[in-house]
């Protein structure tokens, strides 16, 4: 199975690649859509801020390509947030950032208040309805995964699994052929490896 890792020079691309290697998959690193022409599935990793990440996707042609693509796509962390319509993470401009718009919804700033410090950093639990999606095969309610983020997608129609940190956060989402994880499956031990394996095999 050929899988392409969308390469926007984001910092976690090596971690995601190594996690796939541990599952026996060598992904194609695709800086442009043409380089992923032979791939059956796509992963969009990402860390950092929404504005620069969107500019990188637009420059490389990936933004338009993803809007017209029908292959299974998994967004990871910021890569999941980029799937939505708009983000409040404005990099100081005061204006919301337009995202890929593949899933209806908005990315908002997390306000943990009494739950703990901002950003949400560390291992938190997954909550979901059993059997709701093949990505969750073998995963149990209450399993811990590793989150690092300051913005979030509130629970909504596309939410598959949630976690709680001052708000109900979309931990995993699904909209047709497009899915995403707010946490880092590549850094979430055996649980994260199983989710990546489910994506590869599903």
């Amino acid at each position, binding site marked *: 199975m050929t899988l392409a890792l969308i390469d926007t020079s984001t910092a976690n691309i*090596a971690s995601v690649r190594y996690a796939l290697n*541990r599952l026996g998959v060598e992904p194609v690193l695709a800086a442009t859509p043409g380089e992923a022409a032979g791939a059956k599935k796509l992963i969009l990793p990402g*860390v950092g801020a929404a504005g620069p990440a969107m500019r990188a996707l637009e420059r490389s042609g990936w933004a338009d390509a993803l809007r017209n693509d029908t292959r299974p796509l998994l967004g990871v962390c910021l890569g999941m947030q980029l799937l939505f319509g708009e983000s409040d993470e404005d990099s100081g401009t005061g204006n919301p950032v337009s995202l890929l718009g593949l899933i209806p919804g908005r990315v908002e700033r997390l306000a943990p208040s009494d739950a*703990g410090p901002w950003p949400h*950093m560390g*291992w938190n639990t997954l909550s979901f309805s059993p059997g709701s999606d093949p990505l969750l095969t073998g995963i149990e309610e209450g399993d811990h995964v590793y989150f690092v983020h300051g913005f979030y997608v509130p629970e909504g129609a596309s939410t598959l699994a949630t976690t709680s940190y001052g708000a109900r956060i979309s931990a995993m989402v699904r909209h047709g052929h497009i899915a995403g994880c707010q946490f880092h499956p590549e*850094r979430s*031990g055996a649980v994260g490896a199983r989710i990546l394996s489910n994506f590869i095999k599903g």
Partner: protein
Amino acid sequence: MLARRIIPCLDVRDGKVVKGVRFKDHEIVGDIVELARLYAGQGADELVFYDISASPEGREVEPAWVGRVAQVIDIPFCVAGGIRSVAAARARLHAGADKISINTPALENPSLINALADEFGSQCVVVGMDSRKIGGIWRLHQYTGDPDRTLTSERDTLSWIKEVTERGAGEIVLNCMDQDGVRQGYDIEQLMAAREVCPVPLIASGGAGAMEHFADVFKKANVDGALAASVFHKGVIAIPDLKNYLAQSGIEVRP
């Protein structure tokens, strides 16, 4: 619920993991990749690799071992020591590190914190601090990897915590030097004071000697994580036993 993190710290010198007492007399405890794999397998929540010789000698961590670690472990890890530029940080993050930590270079050039946070996001930027009480005030120390060069900074620790978080640091590791390596418990008083002024995740470091010390620091100082080295390297505490103990003490941990 967000789990409290248990973080083994691997001090690295010349490519080997070492541990000294009160920053002196370092002894080799093992190979970096082997220990990383061992701790990840035992349920460590995160690892910190600290190149203790990097700051004093002005050289940078060799990214080759960063990539080797990233290939084998499936938990987050942070690389510290000798990172003095955005380019040096980028090399480590692109090699697979999840975070970079700066200590002495932040004191010498505080705007480096802003530059790193702007470039990579606050979640990648950890500021480490070595601090002890002098004349009734907690003060920072620099170049702590080398006892002959260790300096006391003019800055007081609590105001520095405020400044670095305003500049964009996403996490603080506070190493309490009076307690480091002597296994008498974390410096609860200092960590409580730090917690009061620290709006981002706070990691306790220095002094772990028994499982009760971890329960104490989570309950009393409300830190997000506890870092330790010798108790893990010397087999005094096994991480699975520690996690069980903390869970039984009513502290949220990842099993």
